[in-house]
């Protein structure tokens, strides 16, 4: 199972992930129609991208009255079927992270579905701040860094 991981230290706040996502999800360049969102902390110029965590027991799926949100058992991704959606926005209220929201320009929700296994945001991230990796590899680099520190006796 693959996960979308974020390395905030590498993010430069360039917004390319937001543009790429909104283009594929909503057909125009608009960060407000992107499933991934960068938060800016101006005082120290820090940037933190946020994206759907694909919860296993997802609140959005639980509250959806029509079954338009459902978990794909193979990939673990919570997917969205627009045809069944009645735009009640219960999912938006229920998500604790703010990861699902309505499309500003059409009657649909914006939901991260990893673009079916080839996320656009990752393709456009020039800094390697976004990675799409097998879940067991997601911690590999952090572990290696820790191991290196041990080796150097830090």
């Amino acid at each position, binding site marked *: 199972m693959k996960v979308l991981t974020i390395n905030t230290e590498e993010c430069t706040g360039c917004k390319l992930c937001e543009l790429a996502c909104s283009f594929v999800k909503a057909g125009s360049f608009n960060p407000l129609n992107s499933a991934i969102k960068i938060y800016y902390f*101006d005082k120290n110029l820090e940037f933190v991208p946020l994206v759907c965590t694909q919860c296993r027991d997802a609140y959005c799926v639980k509250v959806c009255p029509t079954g338009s949100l459902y978990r794909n058992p193979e990939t673990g991704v919570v997917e969205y079927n627009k045809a069944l959606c009645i735009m009640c926005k219960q999912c938006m209220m229920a998500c604790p992270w703010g990861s699902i929201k309505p499309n*500003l320009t059409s009657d649909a929700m914006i939901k991260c579905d990893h673009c079916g296994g080839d996320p656009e945001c990752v393709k456009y991230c*020039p800094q390697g701040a976004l990675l799409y990796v097998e879940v067991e590899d997601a911690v590999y680099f952090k572990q290696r860094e820790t191991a290196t520190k041990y080796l150097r006796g830090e």
Partner: protein
Amino acid sequence: MKYRGELLRINLTDKNIIREKLKADIFFNYLWGRGYASKLLLDEMNPAVDPLSPENKLIFALGPFAGTPLPATSRMMVVTKGALNGLIASSNVGGYFPFELQHAGYTLIVIEGKADNPVYIWINDETVEIRDASHLWGKTTSEVDALLKDETHPEAKTVEIGPAGEKLSRIAAIIIDAHRAAGRTGVGAVMGSKNLKAIAVRGTRGVSVISSQRLKDYLTKIYERVKKSGGVTMFRTYGTTRTVRAINSIGAFPTHNHRDGFFDEYLLIDGENVNKEILVRNGSCAGCPIACNRISKVYWKGEEYVGGGPEYETLWAFGGQTGISDLHAVTYAHFLANEYGFDGISLGSTIAALMDLFESGIIGEDNLPFPVKFGDAEAMINLIHLAAKREGIGDLIAEGSYELTKHFGHPKFSMSVKKQELPAYDPRGVKGMGLAYATSNRGGCHVRAFTVTEEVYNTDDPEYRLKYDDKALIVKELQDKQAVVDSLGICSFARTIYGVDDFSEMLEVTWDIDLSPEKLLKCGERIWNVERLFNVRAGFTREHDTLPERLFKEAIKTGPSKGEIYDKREFEKLLFEYYRLRGWDENGVPREKKLKELGII
């Protein structure tokens, strides 16, 4: 053609707000950004007006790709009659404001008139308000940025002036998002003269281009190129800071107010040391994969400061030019310039001119609150504070180096062309830059024709930079090309990614606009001539197209360009050759034939 651009015209005198469609006959001939705005200025305004009068107009102009992921295409030009010298000014800047402005639906903002009291403008998509700013007056730029986000929207992006612009300093900048500067030619004073403290913008409308497979393919292709570009990697790793080493190594790094062209202590302010000592991380402009911006942390008098910068130009202006090698002090000076809203190049070089006057014995301690010797970091920082308050000698510093040195009777100590302080490439060591400085439409500036690439990097001849040769042609061609780059809102550093051929393709796949590379370059020449025409009508002529006397008379003393001067006779030859190539007369005035050929008259 799917393109629809909108212009927002705001008159601060009568509070009128008008929306206009961009005119196709203008953008097909003058493009967008700098070109469109220059054409508007020439058509709508008398070039002879006082730059600080309500008759002057202040234009913020974007290119046609702003707000898209086409790499490094969301730059903004601030176009007006500059307060520093009365030339047509265009000052380029990135950050997030330009991107946000396009997402609110506007490609140009034209500010006219003058408000009775301090105001700011709040643009929230189609809602545009002129609001009271009396509570913001006197505040520094980061304070204004934070307060505006509280008052409007946390995601709003801002442009603002600091105390320098309010006090009409002729070297005042307009600051973007608190950390970036439309620095040159005194655009901040023009904004201050209109009682306009800031503009905040929030855009939710997005940019709807042609959503085609061709655009997707083009984006894929261009991002592959970004990944492979060595230039991109260099800018990402060092920003512009490693240029210190590169330019000092050819002996063209002006030092001690151009007394020399080589700085012994250069390693202390070079990119390697920036990365090691003060760099926290990279930042970027919206929509840019290069991310050249430095975010640094420095200490001054035990206090910690975090901000955007430094850049090559400020490492030089507050470093080599003043003879200071304390990286923390130099970077802190850059931060202060942004906080107070000064142009870093002009401020640093003006302080260097003052140091030169002092060390030459022209002024003594009776003129100054403290001694101002080359290399004295504390004196420099204190002078910046005084300049922001316009207190004592600071009042003269705020007028720029020309007025300062003239006040003391020695204007030749001002290292400026048309009163604008020269940037960090010594023409004695890179001859093409001399002609580029002398003929730049906004006074001493390196970005209208950056000949260094041709003279140093794209040649096998290590002596080529010291020859006069064909430099007139190089300057002319680079000026025309740069006018295209600026008028499409493209960052100069994207030159490592794409060229004019790409621009044509981008216009086609994004907006279905047909402009061949040849037509684009013709637009560039047209823009250059329109700007020159503005300057001619503002009273500028051949006598102003020159260099500071020191560069003609005093040789570089040490380093690889030791013994080099700028030969005056060679300069005159280059200038006349340049006029000939331009189709201008011997006084530098565009001939009627040329203006007709370009369709300007």
